[in-house]
């Protein structure tokens, strides 16, 4: 926890900020963060950083007029100043009753260190460097360059409001990722993430990426087209992350930008996706940014759209329960599902390969973006290990391909799902997903990185 306060606690800061808001309705949110990251490239550490910060965000509601101010100066003067700014903003703002609702005390009350590891919190630069050296060693063994990052983070989120809600959680996260590269275009990727730094095996991460890189050298062209694909867990997690951005929120549905229609079939009956911040096999998250306890939400059940995530604004507007998926309010993005899970199937990856006469194996995707939100059409490139499958075997690496594909449509044609799942942390969004690998019959690649560039 970022100890910016000398003699006070997070609770004291929150309560004092609410007092300084005067007689107004108010919400105080504290976000403390101690983060460190050791970054390596070309098999050497080239960046090594740490930061410590804590921010108090005060939302003041005065007769439906909302003002928000934040500061990372948490002494008496800083708190007075932020309260003055928030009150002044609300005094000048225009009323918007829909945006003013504060959740009641009954929706919060969490005080937990679940998802916190003292070992992760205490991780030293030397410890991270040791992990990095293990990855580099795995690369050197295969004559590959290793790049990547080993990060550790402790975060405290605490929210209190004038309705009596008070919630706090402290979490940690450790993450190690690497890309191994070598001659002739060799490139492989691996990632491991956990609340507990001891749950990460740097040598194993290095070996996984090195193995993939060695097999991906000397890739050749494959024409764009529609193929049967196997998407490894990294690729599936990215796709589901973007479904969350575009479709799982009640606001996205209300604004007509989501593929989700509650009660309708949106994917194949072998697909179930849910959000659960309490599941310890993910990256646990007990509360949202309104301090509301996170509920499990079954988003897609046996292919049918069964649930959406809500915050105060959407819950109030639609007269339904808050699910604990609010981002710092007010915001125009709406609620977000960030502890995602997809149900495993019964297949091994070798079972999934068998029977594919011609297809493509995808390790991961790069630079995915939403082309058409309503149909959840995504585009992006394959990366770090794309292979041609023939007669149930990986026969050769292929150059990276661009896909442009409506994901609900693709997930309506999943013909095999792995029995094992993997926890994958998104590159920067804060979303984590525990997902299986999948086989899809009919996945559209619309372009390729051609050899014509001389590269």
């Amino acid at each position: 926890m970022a100890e910016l306060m000398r003699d006070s606690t997070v609770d004291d800061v929150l309560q004092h900020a609410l007092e300084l808001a005067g007689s107004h309705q108010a919400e105080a949110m504290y976000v403390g963060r101690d983060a460190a990251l050791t970054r390596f490239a070309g098999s050497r550490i080239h960046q090594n950083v740490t930061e410590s910060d804590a921010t108090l965000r005060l939302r003041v509601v005065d007769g439906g007029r909302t003002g928000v101010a934040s500061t990372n100066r948490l002494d008496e003067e800083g708190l007075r100043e932020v309260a003055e700014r928030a009150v002044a903003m609300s005094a000048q703002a225009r009323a918007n009753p829909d945006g003013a609702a504060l959740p009641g005390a009954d929706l919060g009350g969490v005080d937990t260190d679940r998802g916190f590891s003292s070992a992760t919190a205490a991780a030293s630069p030397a410890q991270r460097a040791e992990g990095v050296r293990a990855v580099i060693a795995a690369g050197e063994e295969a004559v590959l360059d290793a790049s990547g990052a080993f990060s550790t983070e402790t975060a405290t989120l605490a929210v209190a409001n004038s309705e009596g809600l008070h919630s706090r959680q402290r979490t940690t996260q450790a993450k190690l990722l690497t890309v191994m590269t070598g001659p002739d275009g060799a490139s492989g990727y691996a990632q491991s993430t956990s609340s507990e730094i001891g749950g990460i095996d740097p040598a194993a991460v290095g070996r996984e990426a090195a193995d993939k890189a060695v097999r991906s050298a000397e890739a050749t062209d494959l024409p764009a087209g529609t193929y049967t694909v196997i998407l490894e867990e990294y690729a599936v997690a990215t796709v589901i992350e973007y479904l969350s951005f575009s479709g799982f929120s009640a606001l996205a549905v209300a604004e007509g930008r989501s593929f989700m229609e509650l009660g309708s079939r949106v994917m194949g009956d072998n697909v179930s996706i849910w959000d659960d911040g309490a599941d310890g096999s993910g990256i646990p998250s007990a509360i949202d940014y309104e301090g509301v306890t996170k509920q499990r939400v079954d988003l897609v059940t046996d292919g049918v759209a069964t649930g959406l995530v809500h915050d105060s604004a959407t819950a109030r507007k639609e007269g339904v329960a808050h699910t604990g998926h609010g981002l710092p309010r007010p915001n125009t993005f709406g609620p977000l599902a960030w502890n995602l899970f997809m149900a495993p199937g019964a297949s091994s990856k070798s079972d999934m390969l068998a029977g594919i006469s011609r297809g493509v194996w995808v390790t991961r995707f790069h630079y995915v973006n939403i082309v058409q939100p309503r149909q959840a059409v995504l585009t992006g490139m394959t990366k770090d290990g794309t292979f041609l499958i023939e007669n149930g075997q990986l026969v050769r690496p292929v150059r990276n391909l661009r896909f442009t594909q409506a994901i609900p449509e693709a997930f309506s044609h999943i013909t095999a799902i792995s029995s094992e799942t993997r926890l994958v942390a998104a590159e920067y969004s804060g979303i984590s997903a525990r997902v299986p690998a999948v086989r899809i019959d009919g996945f559209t690649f619309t372009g390729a990185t051609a050899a014509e560039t001389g590269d």
Partner: protein
Amino acid sequence: MKDLIELALDAAERAGADYADVRFVERLTESLNVKNGALEAASSGRSAGLGIRVLVNGAWGFAGDARMEADAVERLARDAVSIARASGTASGAPVVLDDTPPAVDSYRTPYQEDPFAVPLEEKLKVLFAADEAMARVPGISMREGTMDLARERKIFGSSAGAMIEQELTEAGAGIEVAAVGDGDMQQRSYPNSSGGQHVTGGFEAVRAMALPDHGERIAEEAVALLSAPECPSGEMDIIIDSSQVALQVHESCGHPIELDRVLGMEASFAGTSFLTLDKLDQLQYGSDVVNIDADATAPGGLGTFAYDDEGVPAQNVPIVSSGRFVGYLTSRETAPIIGRQSMGSSRASGWNVIPLIRMTNVSLRPGQAGSLDDLIADTREGLYLATNRSWSIDDRRLNFQFGTQMGWLIKDGRLTQMVRNPTYTGITPRFWGSCDAICGPEAWTLWGVPNCGKGEPMQTHRVGHGAAPARFRNVQVGVRR
């Protein structure tokens, strides 16, 4: 604050740093958002802290903290040195910085009207007037107006003797509408998508956008797009509007010329670059009408400053000259590797992170094709594409695909038919090689991109791109899924 910086530098040297620099940064922000006729958000932010970067035996360490008492700062300096020593256990060849002389100077963004002095009610009036204009058009499902203002005060000091104080002021605003029907959603934005236009400057820039004057037009266009035919598929000549050309420059030129990326330092996250060192001064990047520079001195650019975050003076350097690739964006660490001095593009998004090579204002110079109307009139058949909607490019910055909000078919020098969901795709050098006309200075705009992501931990930075509408021959459009 300068005393504190001196204290930090002294503590770092005493702890064993061979080189140290310290940045104090305080960033004040104000954001307003009006959505569907209601004030969604009025917020004000302040973040301040100190970042200390050190070299010990040629290895880097960095520590940043919001606590700025003397004892905390001394501890922070020692932490940075400890981290550098840990780096030294796997750091390879020692880092060598170029010999940029230390500067003592100050700079302030010029502006006419302090955006923080304009009353909130006056700012809201602009957004509500634009909202009312958009609301006049039936069939709109969502209306949104945003305004983002910022002031960053920063002081850079180094153990080599630099002490530079800068105050950068930024202003940005924009409006957007969405229309929904028949299972489709269409959006239009003004002056640009992703929050509109952003500059370094004062509130006069927001007033000049005249947001209310454009609300009705973009709303009508969004509704019309719902019933427009789909963009055709095939190879066509295309004219791209200046804001989309700016993003094309950003993704296919701005990123691949970052020398840290070229050297593999971003391989595990943002990717690498097809513009490898052997391409410098050799590769024909585009046609001979293509000239691109990186100009941190351009008035009003979001990448405009007097010194970068390593204390290197702002410069204007050529990147592509008559189509030939001639320059990289560099830092004090990377420039010596290619035998050059840093051209001053090492920037940190805040006090808590290290400077990385970032774009300044990477701009396509205006051509000789006159106005947009002139260029359309000069095109027998093709497609006009306006305002970015989606973007994606591979990890070496070769294979890209963009979608725009709106397209128009061109026939015999006139816009004839609006089309929806337009996309285009290509391979970077081939695409720029197909550029045969660029509009002139009268159609050139210096756009601000406020959301450029790079690095781990990821830094979201503010960069600029000047661009005019341009024509490209035989481009694949209308990508089908």
